[in-house]
């Protein structure tokens, strides 16, 4: 390839990337930089590198909110990683075309409801009086909405809601990734006498590693920002689910209840650091940025 053609190709690439880059800078990078600036300054703009951080960490709600988010993330990420991969492999293994297609549609449907509206749906599912699952809830000893949303149940409830709304999309993505595995490798494995379980463990899983890491990184970023679910449940339960349940809600409270944008920014920056560190782990362990020079 000669030099000018190569150059032209690069500039066309830049044109394609530019709109994304502009919006990412305007609505991702710049707000993050502004948050970092706010987090190390006081109300009057004076430089206070640690004051905001120590203030929010000393807040009696901080560690309980962090614990809530951690529990939720633990349950949700584990469920995603295990169940999504399992279901995708099962769907992929289904030979009957119509069954496989309808299973994918079935998994994907809940994800078609936009975030807040799907949570609204769950408000009814969780109320034993209105819920189609009412008898089940009552059989588990929960006869009122307040009993269902006892504090100890919340991480599980939020994880179920998030899984229900988000997992379908990932199953489709994993299904696509499974389709990408070359049939030759699969054939070879089968000829060597591998059963479906062995194929899954020794061929499909290792080849899905990057996709799993990708799902983990994106889900982690979304999960640490838990906000819509507890906020709506808080409104619906007349504050029995506190409005400072998650870290993101606490940041919101700082900004709009305490009128303390600097404290709010400090929480956001802490969240950013945690999410970056954990993402780095997933990226390196999952080999997400490795390029195949085959």
């Amino acid at each position, binding site marked *: 390839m000669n030099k000018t053609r190569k150059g032209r190709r*690069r500039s066309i690439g830049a044109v394609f990337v530019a709109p994304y*880059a*502009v919006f990412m*800078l305007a609505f991702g990078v710049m707000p993050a930089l502004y948050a970092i600036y706010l987090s190390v300054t006081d109300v009057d703009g004076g430089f206070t590198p640690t004051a905001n951080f120590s203030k929010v960490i000393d807040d009696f709600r901080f560690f309980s909110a962090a614990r809530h988010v951690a529990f939720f993330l633990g349950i949700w990420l584990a469920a995603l990683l295990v169940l999504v991969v399992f279901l995708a492999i099962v769907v992929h293994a289904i030979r009957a075309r119509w069954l496989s297609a309808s299973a994918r549609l079935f998994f994907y449907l809940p994800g078609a409801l936009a975030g807040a509206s799907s949570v609204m749906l769950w408000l009814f599912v969780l109320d034993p009086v209105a819920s189609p699952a009412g008898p089940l809830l009552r059989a588990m000893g929960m006869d*009122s*909405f307040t009993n269902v949303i*006892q504090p100890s149940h919340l991480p599980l409830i939020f994880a179920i809601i998030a899984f229900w709304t988000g997992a379908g999309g990932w199953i489709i993505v994993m299904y696509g990734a499974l389709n990408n595995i070359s049939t030759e490798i699969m054939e070879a494995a089968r000829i060597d006498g591998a059963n479906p379980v062995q194929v899954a463990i020794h061929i499909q899983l290792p080849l899905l590693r990057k996709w799993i890491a990708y799902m983990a990184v994106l889900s982690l970023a979304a999960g640490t920002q838990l906000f819509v679910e507890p906020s709506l449940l808080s409104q619906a339960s007349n504050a*029995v689910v506190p*409005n400072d349940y998650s870290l993101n809600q606490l940041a919101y409270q700082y900004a709009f209840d*305490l009128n303390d944008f600097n404290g709010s920014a400090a929480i956001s920056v802490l969240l950013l650091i945690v999410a970056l560190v954990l993402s780095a782990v997933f990226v390196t362990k999952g080999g997400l940025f490795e390029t195949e020079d085959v």
Partner: protein
Amino acid sequence: MNRIQPRRLVRQIGLLGVLSVTAVAVLSGCSSNGSDSSDGGRGFSEAKQDKNSTITVWVDATRVPAVKAFQKANPSIKVKTVTYDGSANGSNSFKTKMSLYDRAGKGWPDVVFSSQNNDASWATQGVAGKQPFAARLDKGLIPAGTLSGFAKGALNPCTVDGGVYCLRNDLAQTVLWYDNSLLKKFGYAVPKTWEEYQALGEKVAKEHPGYIVGSVGDTWTPEVFMWSSKCQANDVTDIRKVTVKTDSTECKRAASMLDTLVADKSLTKLSVFTPDFVKTYTGKVLLMPGPAWFAGAIFNNKESLNVPKGRLGVSAPLAWDGDSAVAGNVGGGTWFISSHSKNLANAAKFAEFVTTDDAYQVDLGPGYPAYAAAADKWVKKQESSGYYATDLSGLTAAAGLVWDGWGFPSFSQEAIWAKTITPLVSSGKSIEDNLGTWATAIKNQAKVNGYQVNE
């Protein structure tokens, strides 16, 4: 593998940077501040006044008739109505939006209705040297004669450090509502004290299970039972000082009564605004301690208990043995005038009209007016409707009995109760045993909101 040359990469990033700065500038627009302001002698610095400018008023859906009544009475004054949620149910939207306008330096409405009564605690305090939102009203903006016409204690939620910063729309004093016909049928007398109330509750549980004497399922439970027992859980002693003392006899007696009656099931754990409550207890509410607005909200409401004409009675607040009777309070809206208003004269006229004029408060207002003269006429109008089984003197008596030892801090006592006590009650635990937990939660919340907790 292709490698992008570092120099080219730098150039591309530079290009993107220029593009994005342009985009941000276009998207956000440029704000300017720098308005003419002067001290009008009313205790805050005033924006340049324009007598003909339109006033913007924020109201909840229920208060829209108030604006219409004002426009009918004052067709020459231009009013723009913005409907919002009234900051109800802890949405805090009034505070949230004003803090955003404070940051932008413009955009404030002229008059705001809030269904909450703790807004004065933040609206009178400027953040970072900015002018507080609420205009002071008792230094000439609203005539002293008007202010003194409000019921005793009605302006307490509006008063900060001796200054008055809002006008009260309606009172929400707690009384004892009862079903007169049911009481007669069962042969019970209306209790006069909380001890009698508790005894009656225990009796109902035995003799007529399924009937109730009240509810603890709502967030205002502490305001109905703890406030009216003089429990010192929320005593705001100074702008940013609060005393929280829940180990007193006053708190324990109320908590123990609630525990007993919840265990007996004569107090329901359901919120009165749930379909389940309406389904289970229509025709079975014998007694119900609660605010004045329960009359319209749950009793005389087709979609709620729908108590027929001639059955609902009201009695003045109950006393504890050997103590004087006081009332609690659950809400009661407030009207604020913006200190940034360009038309303070019309804004003040509006706020005065909607709180005091018969055309709204008596003819259209759903709640017990905070303005005494309007309240008298409102009560007469209600009595003449023939709906109630008794006169409404109980309501009038309660209006002047709201205990002033329970303050109006910037944080929500209802939210604290909901998240700490409600889950305990619904899982069958005792309130009395957890009064300490409650106090700790209040103190913690007070501290993060910048309050000093008096020891």
